[in-house]
């Protein structure tokens, strides 16, 4: 798989008009482990699950066709009366559990509460109850003169989402990450200062495994920004910080993992030092490769690939939008410098993807070292139309089909992206639209 692959538009989901409702802003995107299901969460606390259509033999290019499978309200807004704080219903993260039976399970979280949802299909319904009418009303028991065995009869397919567990009251600060362990029994949740370990069956207990809150809050200089379990080693997890460091912890070494096993941190380049050096070094996302050998971090301007066996520096560094380095003061002023971009691996770990501004997203090929900038735009939504690479000019002279740095729309940002685990299908979320692209088959 290389960046030379042509990417084609497949679908776009969401409202067409430019008037964006706050609740419709997409806040997370996640494929399940088979890629059959694609879940999105939004600021309104809703989850929409799309299902991949079975591939048609005559139209293999339609394999990237996803249709709505289930929609439900995951979280509601709440108010903490004791602290006079509003708890937003925005879905911060969705994580799928590995499928074990016909039903699908996922974890969803807002700032304070994590929920386990069961998504199941029902295509039969029982009929012929002895004590109840078909409409559910109870019969007069004296009118029952005979008994019969209820039977299941086929009915229209219904997809039901039911909350199976609610994990609450364990986070004082805002939850930014959840990650399911490879043992499929436990998962972690991380907020700004603490990481807790849960068992999926137990809702009233959680174990605190990391706590970086200082005794005196005046001494606070660093927060946790993301955390993830290793894909294969159930004892290992990492968490990233606002100071650009990633700490790897081994739960076998100690029950409390405040002391890291490894710390991945690259010294600052003195040539690029500025007032904003620390802010742009803050890591917004960390993801293990599927193999588990590498780890990817996303800071404001770059993506770095780390070998878990080498802590001193990344093995690969890719600039996402280096042309913004000279604009950091303006980006600080308009708060864009605090945007948290996510990143993701391709199924075979050969390409990584991350978002940028102006609805651009970047594909970075690790094998060839090539990169390409593509745009998620409604101007190019003909089915299977090929996306053309985009270029940003920094100099005075601008070539044809280039866009100037000062012309970029910083309100159009792609923060959330996802890559199908087994195929070249990607999901890219703009503010309120979900774009699905697939590679062009020859």
């Amino acid at each position, binding site marked *: 798989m290389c960046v030379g692959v042509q990417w084609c538009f497949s679908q776009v989901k969401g409202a067409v008009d430019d008037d964006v409702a706050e609740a419709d802003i997409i806040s997370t995107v996640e494929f399940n482990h088979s890629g059959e299901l694609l879940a999105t969460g939004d600021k309104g606390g809703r989850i929409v699950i799309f299902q991949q259509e079975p591939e048609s033999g005559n139209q293999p290019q339609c394999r990237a066709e996803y249709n709505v499978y289930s929609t439900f309200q995951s979280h509601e807004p709440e108010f903490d*009366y004791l602290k006079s704080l509003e708890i937003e219903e925005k879905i911060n993260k969705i994580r799928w559990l590995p499928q074990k039976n016909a039903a699908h399970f996922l974890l969803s979280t807002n700032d304070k509460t994590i929920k386990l949802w069961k998504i199941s299909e029902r295509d039969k319904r029982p009929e012929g109850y002895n004590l109840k009418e078909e409409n559910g009303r109870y019969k007069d028991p004296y009118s029952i003169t005979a008994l019969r065995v209820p039977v299941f009869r086929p009915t229209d397919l219904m997809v039901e989402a039911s*909350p199976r567990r*609610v994990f609450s009251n364990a986070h004082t600060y805002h939850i930014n990450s959840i990650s399911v362990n490879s043992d499929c029994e436990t998962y972690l949740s991380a907020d700004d200062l603490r990481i807790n370990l849960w068992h999926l069956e137990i809702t009233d207990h959680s174990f605190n495994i990391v706590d970086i809150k200082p*005794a005196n809050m005046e001494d*606070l200089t660093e927060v946790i920004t993301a955390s993830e379990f290793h894909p294969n080693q159930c004892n290992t997890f990492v968490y990233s910080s606002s100071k650009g460091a990633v700490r790897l912890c081994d739960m076998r070494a100690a029950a409390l993992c405040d002391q890291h096993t490894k710390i991945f941190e690259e010294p600052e380049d003195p040539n690029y030092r500025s007032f904003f050096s620390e802010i742009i070094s803050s890591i917004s996302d960390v993801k293990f490769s599927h193999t588990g050998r590498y780890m990817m971090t996303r800071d404001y301007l770059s993506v770095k690939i780390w070998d878990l066996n080498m802590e001193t520096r990344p093995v690969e560094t890719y600039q996402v939008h280096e042309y913004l380095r000279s604009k950091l003061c303006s980006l600080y002023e308009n708060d864009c410098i605090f945007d948290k971009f996510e990143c993701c691996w391709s199924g075979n770990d050969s390409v990584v993807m991350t978002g940028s501004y102006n609805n651009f997203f970047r594909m970075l090929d690790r094998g060839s070292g090539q990169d390409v900038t593509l745009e998620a735009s409604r101007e190019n939504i003909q089915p299977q139309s090929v996306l053309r690479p985009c270029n940003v000019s920094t100099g005075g002279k601008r070539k044809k089909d280039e866009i100037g740095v000062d012309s970029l729309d910083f309100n159009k940002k792609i923060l959330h992206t996802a890559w199908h685990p087994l195929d070249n299908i990607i999901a890219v979320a703009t503010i309120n639209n979900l774009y699905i692209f697939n590679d062009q088959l020859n």
Partner: protein
Amino acid sequence: MILKGEKRKVRPEDQEVLLGWENQRQLVLSLSFIKHQHGQELLEPSLRRQVLIANTLRQLSALVPENQVPPSDDDEEDWGSMSAEPDFEVTAAVASILTALDAPMDGGPQVGLRAPLRALENLLEPGWDKAAAQAYGELWENKDVEVMRFGSLGDVTVEELFHDIDTSLLQSDGGGEDLLRCLPPLVPSPIPPPSANHCFDLDHLMEVLVKS
């Protein structure tokens, strides 16, 4: 080369650079103060954002040039490490930022030494019966399709509060007082470790509910 005793003079081109640097420093400093104030007013305060702003303020306060002299070739002084007396106003502002962050979030006395593998039982009110908590949690097991909705306090009547109680509690000794203590929390909110004042507030809240 500057001879001993000779007064260093600011070169015109260096003064320009110095002014530009100082102007940007002042700009970023003022922006940071404004952002701190706006951050307090945000409906969704972000600890990460506030900490990054506070760190920027610290950094700026430490970069106050003493003699306003730019570095020369002979002078190994590093621009980045120029420091004088820290700006006490900025230091105080940083302290106030971070202290204020703690007050609405993690209030109450700090948790004591964390014992390894000590399960953090989901924060319960004093007198909350653990069995009741488990029964409340198990309500989720019986939920079918409909999602439980959390309403605001204004939408909840006393009768609706009682709907969530496991009726087995009614048979416990102690009568009504035990029942009141076993009421589920009004809202699913993080509860700080029990403290005397906290207990007093909850008791008062219960009193108001019962009277209403």
